[in-house]
């Protein structure tokens, strides 16, 4: 899922300075799974905002609302009946959700309460790790199911660099060398012959490098 982390309270308070009536929108999907913007976290942030404002002798009214997702029309439409009562929307969804809300409610400022980080997985409760860069040309079949673009710090395509040492990357001693992981997995799968196949220079046009992307399925359009 998409993993994000909440902005520091100070930053959020700074963004909210001119406002007294805030609609705090959570999201029930990715940000709930990574414990950043779900119903619980909305409750905690709302509480923090009220406490911080009260401490400075100022008021704030925060409505807590958690939508199923903020990346689909139908769910964002659900706030239409009451969005007019608020001066600003503070969204805890990922960047995609925050922007979509802004697109739909053009006369309301929409502020981000989180920093969106990466596409990742849950290693254990409380720990999330990056796995995918959304490069648009998946080669996981050639690398034993481990992505060299996302998991190698240099996104190398044909084996580790000289900085790989004891299975760790030179960038950070806690970071596994992506290519070490790939080689270990290819050995386990009995596919070491794949390692000999040269993966050619990557065509990055399918990635964000080719410009903002769009996918269309004509058969699904109404």
């Amino acid at each position, binding site marked *: 899922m998409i993993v994000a982390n909440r902005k*520091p*309270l*100070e930053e959020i308070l700074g963004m909210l300075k001119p406002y007294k009536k805030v609609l705090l929108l959570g999201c029930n999907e990715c940000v709930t799974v990574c414990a950043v913007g779900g119903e*619980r976290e909305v*409750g*905690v942030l709302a*509480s*923090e905002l*009220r*406490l*911080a404002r*009260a*401490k*400075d*002798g100022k*008021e704030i*009214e925060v409505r807590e609302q958690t939508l199923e997702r903020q990346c689909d029309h139908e769910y964002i439409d659900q706030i239409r009946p009451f969005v007019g009562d608020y001066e600003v929307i503070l969204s805890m969804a990922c960047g995609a959700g925050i922007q979509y809300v802004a697109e739909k409610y053009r006369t309301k400022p929409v502020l981000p309460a989180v920093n969106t980080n990466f596409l990742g997985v849950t290693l254990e409760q409380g720990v999330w790790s990056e796995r995918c860069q959304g490069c648009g040309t998946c080669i996981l079949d050639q690398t034993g199911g481990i992505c060299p673009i996302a998991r190698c710090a240099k996104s190398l395509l044909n084996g580790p660099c000289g900085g790989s040492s004891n299975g760790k990357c030179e960038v950070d001693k806690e970071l596994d060398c992506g290519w070490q992981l790939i080689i270990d997995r290819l050995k386990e799968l009995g596919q070491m012959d794949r390692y000999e196949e040269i993966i050619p220079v990557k065509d990055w046009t399918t990635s964000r490098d080719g410009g903002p992307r769009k996918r269309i399925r004509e058969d699904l359009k109404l």
Partner: protein
Amino acid sequence: MRLNYPTNVKIVKVPCTGRVDILLILRAFESGVDGVYLAGCLEGECHFLRGNLRAKKRVQYVKGLLDEVGLGSGRLEMYNMSSAQGQRFAEVAREMTEKIRALGPSPVKNRVRGV
């Protein structure tokens, strides 16, 4: 045991300190309390195995939040005691009361609307 302890301590009974959520603590401060403490089983002796350890971590987390917000982490504490330790219960009640008295009333007392 009929021991005395300060009357300003209000007890909220929970089956285990592991039941205490971050939001419960924050809402308590919103309602105007000057301090909060959790009294849980001795470490390693939690009736529900690890509830008190979860509570300990949550208390650490909320202490961080309280510092961020400006109320100060000193207003929240975790204590461990056996349910047989009546004396310790009274002692902790007195200790916490003194601590909070020294910190003064909560700066957000009566200021948070609608709670």
